[in-house]
């Protein structure tokens, strides 16, 4: 470990922009970005499953509010949603005096809320599509076994829908990673925030932004290969037999 650090310091000795300190900013930025994306995806996923089931409900009073939610959040820019939540929280009268301010003071929480709601809306629609395209035979077979609606949802429809939703969900994960760059707008020091800092400090746009672009590219490929691996494992039974 120490040898590695020494080698790194030596490598960076002649470099004025990429010092250990600026690399440290990028490192912290990477942690913040991953945290933000991971947390919002997990919470969004948990919200999306019941919403997707409700979206296909027969009752208008369940279906319509969910449709409205996804329509609004998919139809407006994430930046507007972020501003709405970030400024909306900051400018509420008297919020600075309550205990809530302790959590909301840092922009991380408003950003997390905005990202979570956004990805929940997209994921809901992805799952709804997958649930809708459940093969008729699977449902009929479950019925024939005398399964209740609830049991059928749990054992048959959801597991099969999750698998079919996998490719689209992989895209959503990559989309979320890219969208998270917006967090830097509300002063969060994520990867893009670190790049903006380095740019402002050294007036070196190419170094600052090309370096961060490379990191994002690596992350994108990592996600891509992870989902390809998952698809290979989970969708193996859907492949043509002779391949």
């Amino acid at each position, binding site marked *: 470990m120490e040898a590695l650090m020494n080698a790194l310091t030596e490598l960076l000795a002649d470099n004025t922009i990429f010092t250990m300190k600026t690399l440290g900013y990028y490192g912290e930025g990477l942690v913040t970005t991953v945290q933000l994306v991971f947390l919002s995806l997990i919470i969004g996923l948990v919200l999306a499953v019941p919403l997707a089931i409700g979206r296909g409900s027969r009752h208008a009073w369940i279906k319509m509010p969910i449709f409205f939610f996804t329509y609004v959040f998919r139809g407006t820019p994430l930046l*507007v949603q972020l501003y709405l939540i970030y*400024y*909306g929280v900051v*400018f509420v009268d008297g919020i600075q005096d309550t205990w809530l301010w302790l959590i909301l003071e840092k922009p991380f929480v408003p950003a997390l809320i905005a990202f979570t709601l956004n990805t929940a809306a997209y994921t809901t629609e992805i799952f709804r599509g997958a649930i809708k395209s459940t093969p008729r035979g699977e449902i009929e077979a479950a019925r024939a076994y005398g399964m209740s609606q609830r049991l059928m949802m749990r054992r048959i429809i959801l597991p099969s829908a999750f698998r079919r939703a996998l490719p689209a969900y992989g895209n959503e994960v990559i989309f979320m990673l890219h969208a998270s760059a917006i967090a830097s707008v509300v002063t969060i020091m994520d990867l*893009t925030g670190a790049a903006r800092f380095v*740019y402002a400090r050294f007036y070196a*746009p190419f170094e600052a*932004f090309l370096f961060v672009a490379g990191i994002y*590219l690596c992350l*994108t490929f990592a996600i891509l290969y992870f989902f390809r691996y998952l698809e290979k494992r989970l969708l193996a039974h859907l492949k043509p037999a002779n391949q």
Partner: protein
Amino acid sequence: MIDLHGYGPRLLEGALVTIELAVLSLVVAVVLGLLTASAKMSRNWMLHKVATLYTTVIRGVPDLVLMMLMFFGGQIGINMFTDMLYDRFDIDIFINVNEFVAGVITIGLIFGAYMGETFRGAFMAVDNGQIEAGRAYGMSHWLVFRRIRFPLMMRHALPGLSNNWMVLLKTTALVSVIGLSDMVRVASEASKATREPFTFMIIVALIYLLIATFSEWGFARLQKRYDVGFGESH
């Protein structure tokens, strides 16, 4: 009525900037997309490699990072280029990067990559027999493209195209970060000045929804037009 504190006209101007930016970027993106799709389908491996590199890199990096690279790096890059022209050939020019033009080029460049993928898939979905029939009629390459390949391709490309347009429209919001006065920037300035973020942000959100709903309707009509002769199956 809602009190806009006199920000109404500026908000409207911002909305116009958003629409202009989106439409012009779409034109750039469609042209770039067609070029990329042709390059990817060409037998020239150099063209193929370049197009693949372009679509892979652009689609792997966040829009905002690319935009900042273009905006902040663009002027320096152009200055370096003009300096070189001055040193080598004694040509003295100064090009100032206009924010709006930079925005159009950046967004066009980003979505050209997505359009390229859409068009490539659509071109490949066109039945080869149709093209052969056109050639058999003695049509030139260009005429086959204009009368047969393009209209048939559009039928397959429209769903993807409309999808890309919706994403592009929302991406234009990012230019507000870099200093263009689109409606998001006006709204964010107004929110800070009046401390009424809900009023302004909700109006902006409604305008986006309005544009999106209107374009959905437009694309549905276009789809109907390009589906003529193909029944109701698509």
